[in-house]
């Protein structure tokens, strides 16, 4: 059954009603420079509706991209559209329809949680009574219902992350920018935060872009991923497609010349990721990937001893390693 929302004026929106059709964000040849450093180099990417992960190591340019999309940073060249509007010409119209959860601790000083969230709702254009009503609702939604009258400055790190999410969703945005939303959270809080983000994207139909350097976070919450490295887009697409529909990953430990064997495997067209613990992850593409026999044959040919083989499934980590490794 379709859930509906009611407002003070009697208007309603079904929760599963589409918010925006088409790519939520498009960047074309986007370059951003900070002094001598190029933070973004000719970035061209399309973010489809739904949950999209913006993945990359620290310094890859993820936050810079989000801040450029918000209009905080003026790019050296290139163009950007967010929910169909040009960032350069309609920044306010865009910000009216998006929610932003910044990476660093941010709040309005001297307010308790409910006043803060209601205030943010009003700043986004909600009438004061609606803003207050929604502030209570979203605070319960993010799990701060019992603490909503406490001053934010007394909150723990995890609670501060939740309140940042609450202020970002109070005005019911069409698109959410989440910058490292699980930073500093304990494992239980992190799981709850990821559940919330997953729920927003998949049950509440909120488009979102999740910037993170944590692969499991992106893999759990998102359907698509844009992998960034050193200011460029390394790869992008649906996570399942990038992982590879055919093929299998094997964890492999050998005795013998490991470096030589890795180059042989790569020569055969297999992706290899060498770990610190003598265990390598080998992606064997195609239908032959379901059988590790090919690995044993290569090992026999190269006169190395296979000590350990364990089939695994391709993870986003493999996608990330391949994308960043290819560059």
């Amino acid at each position, binding site marked *: 059954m379709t859930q509906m929302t009611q407002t003070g004026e009697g208007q309603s929106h079904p929760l599963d009603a589409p918010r925006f059709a088409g790519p939520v964000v498009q960047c074309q040849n986007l370059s951003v420079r900070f002094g001598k450093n190029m933070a973004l180099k000719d970035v061209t990417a399309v973010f489809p509706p739904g949950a999209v992960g913006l993945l990359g190591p620290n310094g890859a340019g993820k936050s810079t991209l989000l801040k450029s999309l918000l209009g905080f940073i003026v790019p050296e060249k290139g163009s950007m559209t967010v929910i169909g509007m040009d960032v350069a010409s309609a920044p306010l119209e865009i910000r*009216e329809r998006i929610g932003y959860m910044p990476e660093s601790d941010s709040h309005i*000083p001297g307010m308790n949680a409910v006043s803060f969230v209601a205030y943010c709702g009003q700043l986004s*254009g909600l009438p004061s009574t609606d803003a207050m009503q929604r502030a209570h609702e979203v605070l319960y939604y993010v799990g701060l219902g019992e603490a909503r009258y406490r001053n934010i400055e007394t909150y723990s790190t995890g609670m501060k992350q939740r309140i940042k999410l609450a202020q970002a969703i109070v005005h019911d945005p069409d698109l959410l920018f989440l910058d490292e939303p699980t930073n500093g959270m304990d494992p239980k809080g992190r799981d709850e935060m990821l559940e919330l983000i997953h729920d927003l994207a998949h049950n509440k139909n909120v488009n979102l872009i999740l910037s993170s350097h944590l692969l499991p976070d992106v893999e759990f919450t998102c359907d698509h991923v844009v992998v960034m490295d050193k200011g460029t887009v390394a790869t992008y697409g649906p996570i399942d497609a990038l992982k590879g529909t055919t093929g299998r990953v094997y964890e492999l430990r050998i005795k013998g010349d490991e470096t030589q064997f890795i180059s042989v495997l790569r020569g055969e067209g297999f992706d290899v990721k060498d770990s610190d613990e003598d265990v390598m992850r080998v992606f064997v593409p195609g239908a032959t990937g379901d059988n590790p026999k090919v690995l044993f044959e290569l090992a026999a040919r190269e006169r190395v001893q296979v000590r350990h083989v364990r089939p695994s499934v391709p993870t986003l980590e493999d996608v990330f390693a391949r994308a960043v490794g290819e560059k």
Partner: protein
Amino acid sequence: MPIHDQGYRRYGGSRASIGRAWQVMTRAGVLSVISKRQFLGLMLFAWAPFVVRAVQIYVSATFQQASFLAPKGETFREFLDQQGAFVFFVTIYVGAGLIANDRRANALQLYLSKPMTSAEYIAGKLAILFLFLVSVTFLPAMMLLLTQAIFAGSLTFVSNNLYLLPAITLFSLAQVLLASTTMLALSSLSKSSRFVAVMYAGLFFFTTALFNALRGITGRSSFAWLSPSASLEQLGDVIFRLPPRYQVPPSVAGLTVLLLIGASIYILSRRVRGVEIVT
């Protein structure tokens, strides 16, 4: 029950048009300040000179023997001069933390991620200080003029001194704009409201001390332009049609005030940004 099962509703109600967020900021800022008892105490003190002057006007209008207390045009100039002290304290109390506290709490990126420009943010903050400063300068001065008319039972004084209406307005505006823009600019330079308060006090005391020292050495007051307070006084004399008190052209004094306001607006435009870029 998982917390996300507790629901999230789509919003289908009305939304204010873009460009009104600064009003929300101002309203919240004003309510936050007047909820403090200390500030209400300060405002009571700030209105005490008005009460004294009102009594003076009443006595002069009621008793013939006290006609020497009757207000003149310069009475209003003196009154606004006296209010300068309260302008100073209100500016520090209300203004020091206006942007500094937001910078400390990283709130600028939250504000500017909403549908508001940095100019609107500055306008919203400026309006808070502006309103309180107007309430200790322009408002009591105008009420004093009204009180005179009420106690005298005629508009003779007002019509004979019609220049007082624009003079009070213009001088109050100069006082308020100079104090509010300067304080807001200083507030944008630091994350500590206490440090901002010290900077503001230092700026006014140091420049005045410098001017007085130069006056002592040279025996002339032509360096009044070095002090924003002295420049404002000089400007006030001209606005109220009184002989200027310093040997500096009023145009130079006016330029000092304008330059300080302009520099403050420039600093604000540079400092109020959603992201701080360090290269």
